[in-house]
């Protein structure tokens, strides 16, 4: 405990940025909107600049950004659960799957026949895409419901027991989708989902990646705003209190079970939104899209980005997605063109997981606190390290506290 009390006061922001920071804090939503718009425009621009256009066509870049954006959404949601509330969730892909299948049931002929509705028949394939927008909310609600169903009995568990239960849940959900052939079409999954549509623009198409890209940016911005609002609210402070010390939080009158359930449900609903969006983009859902690798990758993004820091997590998600899906896949091409003797003959596609694993290990060893750690966490860690030189007993307490998380 003493470690927390002995924290040095926050370094005041430099006088030059003080006013700016204050204003940014007051108009958080505008700052976020503006930042997302600038980043979105900047990334789109990069897709048209020569060295990048050589690797793949501009549209493919935009499409890739959109896929990365799905992971940004997932990472933001998981950050609420793991980074802010301190609940280790290893089966996050389950909620992603639930969101995707929710959309699939409403937006595909197969799903409609199971539900006994004929939405697509009556509205037509193109116009039916309008359901995408309300489905974002429905997907979020369904995923949140499952989050509560899973969380209610298991959130009493501490730390790593919760981790293993969520890991189990993450395994069970794809198995259920895989084995319930009659209602989920088993391995093949549900195909032929309708693409989202807007009243005047009409349906999105696979040819033009921009509508998806812009939708993704809007969703990321909204989720980011909600995350900030939540964390700065009473609820957010309760989450952080629970993360730091659950007993103390309970003693100050926080209802820990409800608070943790809310973190779980809100995190799940974000994954639900990401699931609906991803399903509408792929126009097909199948159990193999939601394996443990997805859960682990999202967790790696959160940890690497810097737990608790939303922008850091978003950047972490983008970096890991890019490393895994763009960089490692274009290594072959790169070394073919450069013609370096030995590297030219190596098939990097085969080495993808090896390199991904090495990258994860290396990044963690270099920056164990993540690329952009939450400022409070950073101070804690650095205090622990400086105290190490002075007093080993205090360090012991600091590390054991770190261990409780």
């Amino acid at each position, binding site marked *: 405990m003493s470690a927390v009390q002995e924290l040095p006061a926050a370094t005041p922001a430099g006088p030059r940025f003080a006013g700016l920071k204050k204003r940014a804090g007051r108009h958080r939503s505008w700052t976020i909107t503006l930042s997302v718009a600038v980043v979105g425009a900047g990334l789109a621009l990069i897709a048209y600049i020569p060295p990048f256009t050589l690797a793949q066509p501009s549209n493919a870049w935009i499409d890739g950004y959109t896929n990365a954006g799905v992971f940004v959404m997932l990472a933001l949601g998981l950050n609420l659960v*793991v980074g802010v509330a301190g609940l*280790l969730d290893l089966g996050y892909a389950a909620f992603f799957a639930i969101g995707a299948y929710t959309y699939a049931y409403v937006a595909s002929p197969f799903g409609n026949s199971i539900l006994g509705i004929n939405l697509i028949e009556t509205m037509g394939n193109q116009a039916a895409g309008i359901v995408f927008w309300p489905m974002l909310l429905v997907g979020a609600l369904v995923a949140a419901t499952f989050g509560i169903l899973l969380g209610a*009995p*298991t959130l*009493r*568990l*501490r730390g*790593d*027991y919760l*981790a*293993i*239960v969520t*890991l*189990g*849940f993450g*395994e*069970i959900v794809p*198995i*259920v989708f*895989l*084995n319930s052939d009659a209602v989920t079409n088993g391995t093949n999954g549900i195909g032929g989902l309708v693409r989202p549509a807007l009243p005047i623009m009409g349906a999105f198409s696979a040819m033009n990646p921009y509508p998806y890209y812009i939708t993704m940016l809007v969703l990321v911005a909204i989720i980011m705003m909600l995350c900030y609002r939540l964390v700065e609210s009473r609820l957010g402070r309760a989450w952080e209190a629970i993360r730091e010390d*659950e*007993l103390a939080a309970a003693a100050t009158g926080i209802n820990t079970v409800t608070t943790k359930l809310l973190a779980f449900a809100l995190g799940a609903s974000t994954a639900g939104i990401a699931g609906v969006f991803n399903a509408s983009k792929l126009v097909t859902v199948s159990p193999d899209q939601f394996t*443990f690798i997805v859960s*682990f990758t999202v*967790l*790696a993004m959160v*940890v*690497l980005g810097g*737990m608790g820091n939303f922008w850091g997590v978003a950047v972490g998600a983008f970096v890991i997605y890019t490393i895994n899906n763009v960089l490692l896949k274009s290594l072959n091409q790169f070394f073919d063109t450069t013609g370096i003797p030995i590297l030219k003959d190596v098939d990097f596609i*085969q*080495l*993808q*997981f*090896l390199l*991904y*694993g*090495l*990258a*994860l*290990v290396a990044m*963690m*060893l270099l920056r*164990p*606190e993540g690329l952009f750690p939450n400022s409070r*966490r950073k101070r804690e*860690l650095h205090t*622990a390290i400086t105290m190490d030189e002075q007093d*080993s*007993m205090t360090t*012991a307490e600091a*590390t*054991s506290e*770190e*261990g*409780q*998380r």
Partner: protein
Amino acid sequence: MTAIAATSDAGGARVPAGRVVRLLVLIAVLVGIAALAVHNLGTEQAIEQGVNALTRGAIYALIALGYTMVYGIIELINFAHGDMFMVGAFVSLTFLGTILGLEGPIYDIPVLIVTLAATFLVTMGIMGLIGVVIERFAYKPLRNAPRLAPLITAIGVSFILQNLVQLRYGPYQTNSPKIFPDTWTIEVAGATIPVLSLFIIAVAVVLMFSLQMFIGRTRLGRAMRSTAADRDAASLMGVNINRTIAITFLIGSALAGAAGVVNGLQYGVARFDDGFQAGLKAFTAAVLGGIGNTVGAALGGFIIGFIEVGATAMGYTRWGPAIVFGVLVIVLVFRPTGLLGQQLGERA
């Protein structure tokens, strides 16, 4: 984490009444399951399936021990441990097939014994070393980092191991020489029981017993228990923490190697992605039994073996993993510390 310490106090005089009751309940449940199995499958089938379940459970239990030891001592869910089992299977098949050039069963008993002993020694030795090296490079530097950092490196190591094996042996199943003759069986109450199954169960039991003795009776075992209980206090008492943790990884990985060997003998094949599912189930076993508790890990392994074989016998093979996790969730809801775990203090 005092759980490793708890199990090894078995020599002590006081056995809490709660534990006896729990054990009785467990025995009653097992007898109930056995009765149900006999009723549904007939005695012969029930015995055969029971032995099958014990064999499978023995493999899970051996893997689970590594999880539970590592968790007990540094509170890390070592996701690479399942892949260590897989690598162990490949080390053993390489030793038997490529180095010794064996293909089929060996009927000469002394030769078989020597070969098996050599295989276990070599595989467990190599795996132990690999485990120590991984700990040195991937986990040790992160010992005081935020606790999720080593979890991520463990996942990274898991990817690395899988990819390396895939590069060397390809994405398909590789045959592992089944040097233990399948034809050796014994008859019990009309049921045919393969000697191999008995051998595997015996190996697992011997290893678990040795581990228990090691943790409970030796100096190094005491160092492990004290490190698990309070690392800093142990360090002040002169325990070499780094060496103790390295030894924990050595033993855990060697046990995973042993599991790999018996897996190869039993099923005769190995594939680069065998480790994940097996590891997940073994970790479930460790949690089911009460994580950090070595006896619990063994118990959990056998329980999961029974659940899986039961699911298969009733025609729900595909639902096996779902049932395993369902049972886990139910057990944890009612006994949040696992079957043999004990209530831990809020703060160490």
